[in-house]
């Protein structure tokens, strides 16, 4: 299982700080090279990593949810914009992670379309799958086009791990005699109940993870990429990974662990022990915040304009500069975080009480 790439020397001590601020220089129009005209207003989640050996930067793009162009070019246009922006940064980025949900319904046309669009990007690309990529053919085409997960590689003093948290769902389809299309359809509704607690790592992959970190110094940084968060935010929408406790038990001895994940389509931040969790934007559309489970450490994104398909979406850049790591939301609007409750994606929900949908209720296992 999995693949191993390069090894790196071990680092020394690690110190962590975190702060979030608006980057005034970019707001004033200084911009990132190659992206200055794109109206970025970056936000930085800053994590100091004292021993990082060389400066480098990488990009995260996920949740493009591509439909065939014949049905809808809106998501294609936004994915294209993100990929062009990543490509424009050229060698300023060491690599890119694609964090899953390239396709909307796992259709070969959608996956191949994504593969073609990604050719715009010439830097090294690493892939982890999302559930929308998987449940039509159980990951066959995804693995053929983009390679299997899990994987690991070491880069300039950091160990990077990519896990598959989507391909290990309990079998919700056999008992109901679902066709592949129906299986994918049940999976594609975020608030559906048919697919149940599908997000998970599974015993075999947990064993792989244990081995993958066994030779790594406890003082050195680990970055773990997953489609779903490695903690429990809101299980009914699978804003979690059901065996996150087992994964955290393996990672807990390490002093500096960062989990970067997609799926939530929104700025989301949490810390548990020595681990921190950074949720990423989608390029397709933003989800509302979950009715419960949003941690106090999360600065809620601003309410966005549903009439503007390019609002509330984007991608992420993670950069090592000396001994510091800067995480930036590349959201295509001026202001990312709300500064008043009336504009907040969570403050807006103060009187809201929700209950799960009813039309698909029932547990097949």
């Amino acid at each position, binding site marked *: 299982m999995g693949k191993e790439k390069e090894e790196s020397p071990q680092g020394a001590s690690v110190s962590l700080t975190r702060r979030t601020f608006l980057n005034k220089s970019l707001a004033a129009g200084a911009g990132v090279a190659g992206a200055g005209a794109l109206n970025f207003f970056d936000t930085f989640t800053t994590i100091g990593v004292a021993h990082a050996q060389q400066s480098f930067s990488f990009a995260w793009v996920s949740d493009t949810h591509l439909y065939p162009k014949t049905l809808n070019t809106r998501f294609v246009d936004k994915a294209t914009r993100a990929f062009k922006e990543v490509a424009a940064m050229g060698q300023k980025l060491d690599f890119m992670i694609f964090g899953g949900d390239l396709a909307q319904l796992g259709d070969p046309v959608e996956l191949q379309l994504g593969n073609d669009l990604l050719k715009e990007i010439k830097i090294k690309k690493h892939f982890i799958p999302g559930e929308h990529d998987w449940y039509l053919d159980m990951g066959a085409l995804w693995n053929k086009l983009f390679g299997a997960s899990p994987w690991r590689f070491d880069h300039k003093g950091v160990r990077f791990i990519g896990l598959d948290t989507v391909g290990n769902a309990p079998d919700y389809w056999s008992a109901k005699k679902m066709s592949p299309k129906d299986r994918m359809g049940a999976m594609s509704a*975020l608030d559906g109940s048919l697919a149940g607690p599908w997000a998970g790592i599974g015993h075999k992959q947990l064993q792989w993870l244990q081995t993958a970190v066994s030779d790594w110094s406890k003082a050195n940084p680990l970055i773990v990429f997953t489609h779903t968060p490695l903690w429990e935010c809101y299980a009914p929408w699978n804003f979690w990974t059901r065996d996150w406790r087992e994964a955290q038990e393996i990672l807990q001895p390490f002093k500096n662990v960062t989990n970067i994940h997609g799926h939530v389509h929104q700025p989301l931040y949490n810390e548990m022990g020595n681990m921190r969790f950074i949720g990423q934007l989608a390029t397709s559309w933003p989800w509302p915040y979950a009715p419960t489970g949003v941690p106090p450490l999360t600065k809620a994104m601003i309410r966005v304009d*549903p009439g503007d398909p390019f609002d509330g979406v984007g991608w992420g850049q993670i950069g090592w500069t000396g001994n510091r790591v800067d995480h930036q939301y590349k959201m295509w609007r001026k202001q990312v975080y709300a500064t008043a409750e009336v504009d907040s994606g969570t403050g807006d*929900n103060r009187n*809201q009480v929700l*209950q799960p949908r009813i*039309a698909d209720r029932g547990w097949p296992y």
Partner: protein
Amino acid sequence: MKKANVLKLGVAAVAALFVAGQPAVAHKEPHDAATLKAFEEAFMEQVIIGDNLFHGDPDAEKKMNVSLSKTGMACAMCHPFASDVHPHEFPKFQEQMSAFATLRDMINWCIEKPNEGVKIDSDSPAMKALEAYIYWSNKGSQLDPGRH
């Protein structure tokens, strides 16, 4: 409950309320459990239709003769559990429309703009079903009409 049963019960209830030449009235007799169950089932039938429409079910759209989206998007893709619809805040001034709006106005705005579908009659069965699902999903939310 099947439509036919609801209809029979409704006809019987209406008939019972008419006394030669008098207007129809309700609550002349205490409600028994069967009647209340029938009322609830009539409501939940609409909730389930609305749930299926809200989640882009093509059979439900065909049955109700509506086309709520031409982009592949469904209401629930931005509003899982009908969250962030805030039905309890309507009517209100709706910024996107620059107008005072009801929930039904907003439903139609979403159908026409993000979904690029075909606007539905504001008193149509599909609109009532969507409204039923949205209100049911948000049951327990605190009324706060006019809030932005």
